[in-house]
């Protein structure tokens, strides 16, 4: 039976709807239209021409950047999830209530500082004359090239998403039904096996959503690949800036942006489907 639309319901749902239409749907439609425009003498010309799509999809460098970005974001999601889980587990199960509150607070603190500033500060640690190489130098090692490498880019991605992933994992683990864990222990399930057979499956939704957030943030990030990765290898976000530098080619940049949005949507739907698979209301 359909519920009648009430003024009360509209009052709360309309602002969100208006917001989404104004700041997501409308710009997205504009981006789609823009991808068919052309550029002449640095000026955008409205029209309907598929040249931008054929040009971008016909370029090997686009597919190379696409593969690189996809691989880096996927690796960041896996790495962040694996590294965040022990911390989230300890916060959720091992700490007292007070300590847990402090730990959550500590995970929020990084967001007080600009991400760009945090990434720049990593340069001081990772450069050839930086802190890490100085420490390694004391024991006769190095210097190792750490800055301007994919590894440094990954460090940036972790900086961006690690605190958020830990927080999401903590919330997910906190809501696990403790009787399931006790039951597993009563049935002589070992600690490690309990983690893999009970805790992780129970917290699957939260863990997958946390990894998804990491993927989304890393996939579109421009700061780390440029300031820690030294712009190599080229990621899609870098390719967008390169494209706009090429005679105001915003329509071609729109093609790349739409490809990124499409990819993120596919990944998000797949992840959400997997996260909620088998769940009932």
């Amino acid at each position, binding site marked *: 039976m359909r519920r009648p639309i009430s003024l009360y319901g509209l009052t709360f749902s309309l602002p969100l709807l208006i917001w989404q239409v104004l700041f997501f749907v409308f710009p997205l439609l504009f981006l789609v239209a823009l991808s068919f425009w052309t550029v002449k003498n*640095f000026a955008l010309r409205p029209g309907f021409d598929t040249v931008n799509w054929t040009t971008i999809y016909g370029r090997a460098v686009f597919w190379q950047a696409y593969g690189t970005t996809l691989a880096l974001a996927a690796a960041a999601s896996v790495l962040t999830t694996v590294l965040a889980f022990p911390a989230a587990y300890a916060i959720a199960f091992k700490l007292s209530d007070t300590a847990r509150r402090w730990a959550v607070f500590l995970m929020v603190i990084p967001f007080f500082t600009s991400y760009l500033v945090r990434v720049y500060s990593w340069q001081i640690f990772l450069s050839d004359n930086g802190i890490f190489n100085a420490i390694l130098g004391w024991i006769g090692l190095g210097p190792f090239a750490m800055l*301007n490498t994919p590894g440094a880019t990954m460090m940036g991605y972790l900086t961006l998403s690690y605190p958020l992933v830990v927080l999401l994992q903590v919330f997910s683990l906190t809501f696990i039904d403790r009787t399931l864990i006790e039951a597993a222990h009563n049935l002589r399930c070992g600690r490690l096996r309990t983690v893999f057979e009970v805790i992780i499956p129970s917290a699957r939704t939260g863990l997958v959503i946390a990894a998804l957030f990491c993927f989304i943030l890393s996939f579109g990030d421009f700061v780390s690949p440029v300031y820690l990765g030294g712009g190599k290898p080229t990621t899609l976000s870098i390719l967008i800036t390169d494209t706009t*530098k090429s005679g105001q080619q915003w329509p071609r940049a729109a093609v790349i942006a739409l490809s990124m949005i499409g990819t993120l949507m596919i990944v998000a739907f797949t992840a959400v489907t997997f996260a909620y698979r088998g769940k009932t209301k």
Partner: protein
Amino acid sequence: MTRTHRMSVDLTRRTLLGAGVAALATPMLARRASAAPTELTMLAWYGHAEPDIVAEFEAANNVKFVPKYYTGGDNMLGLISQSPPGTFDVILSDAEYVTALNENGYVEELDPADYDIADYFPEFQNFPGNWKDGKLFSLIARFGFLGVAYNTDALTAAEASTYKVFWDPKLKGKVGHFDWHLPNLGQMSLLNGNPEPYDIDEAGWEAVKERTMSLRPQVGGFFDYGGTFSSLNDGQMLAFCGIGDWITGVLRKNGAKVDSVIPEEGGLQWSECFSIGKGSAKADLAKKWIQYITSAKGQAKSAQMAAYPALIPNQKGWDVLQAENPDEAKRQGMTKDPGNAMDMIRTGRVKFRQWPIQQDFETWNDFWSEYKGA
């Protein structure tokens, strides 16, 4: 007593109220006494509307500059094309983009009689792109050279005096690129011996691509404005392609061990020109600013800009700079000594940075993306 006491309390309240009103009103009265400064919008590279350059002009003309800084000519054109006419009163543009500004109708025509063009070196009096069909649309205000930038602890000036140094095995992973195809590929073209680095046929272009690709294993990164500064400053990159004194001059001033040199294969010249934005409601003030910054006094100031130093085209500006700051004049080669900055141009050692002539702009940019991704 009581009355007296109450009086004193009332008086105190009144005094307080009166003082408060007076304190609040004083700025308003002061503002009425001297008119509020006129805002003048400037679209420029960072540094051009900073106090070290504009403070004197602002004070003398009761003007307040409102800068909008961009990074790169495409960014500049984008900002203009997305803004209504009259948004920007003064526009600073790299010389390559001046023609596009004019062709798109973004700038007003200038009256040559308004400016001290006769004080300019002859080479700059009819600067390409500034004039069209005998009409003046912009005026060059400063320029600089691009060559090999290097860390003085890692390389000597003699070693850095050829672009071939970028292939030196000891620089593997230590060569940086300023992330813009035009200066980098122009330098590769010079290295290939092209007398006009941007006017090359298909065979020449293929050779430039091949030469550039061979440098890829040496490259440690591709950097924007900020990244270029930091990677040279902290020694992460030991040699840099596509830049010159506009970066190393600033770093040296702050104690970094870096320098730049015009190599034996020749260097490139970047140039910045001022125009008045189309539809500016304050065109007279904008004209006054261009008169100021292209005058001898303004030019000497511009040469020493804190954000990035530059050479200046006004001969009298050189004289003022030599009197004001002889060390900086000498450092930048703006003296009467042989081998000075003008001699570099006159002997053909430096060529204008410009858009490719026989290839599309996009062709060069597309190759640059491929090179970065290689």
